[in-house]
């Protein structure tokens, strides 16, 4: 019987059925960071437990690192205590730590793929909901809580119920100026922020076949914003080409065996899905959010909703969102003044994101009064941007070019909105207060749309600002 990748990976990693009917699932690769792991190590100590497979856990530091200060101690003593605690835990339990001195530090969902740790046909867990990113490689990757981090550290397994699988096809061709970020914002808009509850999303179709690994990562990254615990793309030649030669990728004779093994995990033709959704790529426009969850999105040329035209729950949601965002009912989103432009995060902080923006940003200037920051997702991305002169393009335009970290995506570090500042952001969440100010406002969009907002000082159509069709 033909099987989906999800079924195959699940079956290969299922250890046994637990008393409550859940599966004890082997987690082949465990990624940790400084925010959600310290309590888990504390629990291990309390129970006098060891780490079962220390060589299968990898650590980095991302959420709390300042992006404008490399030297330690950090100005924030709490942040300083957290990085020291992670160092202590990794040293004590024998875990590889991509610390800042290694040149390999960065956002956990950028570091894993970059190092070749993220591989097809594997299970991955991390105490971070954007772990779904790693599904881009044909891995099944779960965001987990701290008690489950303890479980994975102590046993390399966790208890989990099997998910259903929804296949999402995006066929045809994306129009110029439409990016992977628009694809996932569009998917969440039509399926809803809880549409994926109980599902893993399998993304496919012509658009995904053509996508680079970094584009696939952008989409898989935001699966959780649609309520899906995991999202993945079947591995193919693009996947293997990306992995070849990376530090943790198999070498020599093992490489061919690994590729054959990886290939075997791809969904079989004719396998059954619990649900199938098909989208025409031509229907996807540059998409921006107008509200306070990632499903509240519209195309750049639409108007924000008017609560008078909807009823019930939706009216309440629209009213709450518009009041928070200080937007007028039925107003065009285009032209809304912004205060901050943020380019980075685990969604859009990879080399290709900066490369694409730099192509258009050359010779342009950030609008007066706009604070614009560009934050590479890893030290590796930062180095590549420097080699290619990309950082220079951003700096010349008036962006601040920073050190690697999560930065303004979630404001656990000094990069925060102030008051009710409005931020054009390439990150993944526009929740109330997400970017650090309880009244701060976020509009999610693709990196090129962030650049368009930065240079015009308003929410703008990047296709017009940069004459995208002519390039």
């Amino acid at each position, binding site marked *: 019987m033909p099987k989906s990748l999800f079924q195959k990976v699940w079956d290969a990693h299922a250890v046994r059925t637990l008393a409550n009917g859940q599966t004890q699932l082997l987690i*082949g690769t465990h990624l940790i960071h400084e925010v959600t792991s310290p309590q888990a190590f504390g629990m291990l100590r309390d129970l006098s437990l060891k780490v079962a497979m220390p*060589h299968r856990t990898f650590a980095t530091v991302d959420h709390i690192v300042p992006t404008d200060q490399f030297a330690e101690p950090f100005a924030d003593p709490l942040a300083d205590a957290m990085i020291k605690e992670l160092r202590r835990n990794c040293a004590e339990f024998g875990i590889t730590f991509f610390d800042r001195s290694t040149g390999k530090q960065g956002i956990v969902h950028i570091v894993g793929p970059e190092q070749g740790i993220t591989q097809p046909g594997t299970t991955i867990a991390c105490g971070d909901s954007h772990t779904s990113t790693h599904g881009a490689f044909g891995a099944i990757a779960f*965001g987990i809580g701290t008690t489950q981090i303890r479980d994975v550290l102590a046993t390399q397994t966790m208890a989990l119920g099997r998910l259903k699988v929804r296949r999402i096809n995006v066929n045809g061709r994306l129009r110029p100026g439409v990016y992977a970020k628009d694809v996932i914002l569009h998917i969440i808009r039509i399926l809803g922020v809880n549409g994926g509850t109980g599902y893993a999303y399998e993304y496919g179709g012509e658009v995904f076949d053509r996508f680079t690994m970094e584009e696939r990562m952008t989409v898989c990254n935001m699966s959780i914003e649609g309520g899906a615990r995991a999202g993945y793309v079947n591995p193919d030649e693009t996947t293997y080409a990306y992995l070849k030669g990376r530090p943790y990728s198999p070498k020599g004779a093992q490489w061919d065996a690994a590729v054959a093994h990886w290939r075997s995990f791809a969904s079989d033709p004719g396998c059954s899905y619990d649900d199938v959704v098909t989208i025409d790529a031509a229907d996807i426009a540059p998409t921006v959010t107008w509200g306070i969850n990632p499903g509240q999105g519209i195309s750049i040329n639409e108007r924000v909703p008017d609560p008078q035209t909807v009823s019930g729950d939706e009216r309440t949601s629209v009213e709450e969102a518009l009041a928070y965002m200080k937007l007028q009912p039925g107003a065009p989103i285009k032209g809304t003044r912004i205060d901050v432009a943020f380019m980075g995060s685990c969604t859009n902080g990879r080399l290709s994101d900066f490369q694409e923006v730099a192509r258009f940003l050359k010779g342009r200037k950030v609008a007066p009064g706009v604070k614009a920051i560009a934050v590479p997702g890893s030290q590796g991305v930062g180095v590549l941007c420097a080699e290619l002169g990309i950082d220079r393009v951003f700096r010349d335009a008036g962006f601040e070019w920073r050190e690697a970290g999560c930065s303004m995506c979630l404001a656990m570090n000094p990069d925060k909105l102030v008051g009710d500042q409005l931020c054009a952001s390439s990150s993944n969440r526009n929740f109330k207060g*997400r970017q650090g100010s309880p009244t701060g406002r976020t509009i999610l969009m693709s990196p090129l749309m962030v650049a368009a907002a930065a240079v015009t000082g308003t929410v703008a159509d990047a296709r017009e600002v940069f004459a995208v069709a002519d390039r």
Partner: protein
Amino acid sequence: MALAKITSVSGRAVYVPGNDIDTDRIIPARFMKCVTFDGLGEFLFYDVRKNADGSDKAHPLNEARFKGATILLSGLNFGCGSSREHAPQAIQKYGFRAVVAEGFAEIFFGNCTTLGIPCMVAKREDIARIAEAVNANPQLEVTLDLDAREIRFGGQVVKATLRESDRDALVNGRWDAIGELLDGRSAIQATAAKLPYLAA
């Protein structure tokens, strides 16, 4: 490591209305700069409960009549967003022992079970009835019955559900899986041995 068998939760309830209440709202990220979960309770719903100067905003949790409530009532997709266990930890440390909503985000739901916090799903109109009764009499005792899959309050009964694996874990006192997971050691080794990438 005997765990409590959580077959029911009884206590006073408070209704925090709204859909898609995310984990950033439950516990803003800046309060996660900590290496233990101690003290998170006081920051529960902080930015919607407190003004910048620390004074109270209008919020059900700030109303004296709802102090001491142990059951939290809410809307659809409660706990969406981040996987931070800090969210259910803050809920528990504030004093809540159960949550009733129209629906839950998955990671949050699982994190709650692991801490022994039942998350029961009820229909909107039924949650509204409980909320109405509690609003009229904040002292009213509300009982979540995990065996009968119902919620009782002031002589009324409404249906409530809980995913079977989680209900089983709670009522049988195995909601913290660590013991059972550790018991699987030999089976873990056998499964790992079949996967080439796990060779040391």
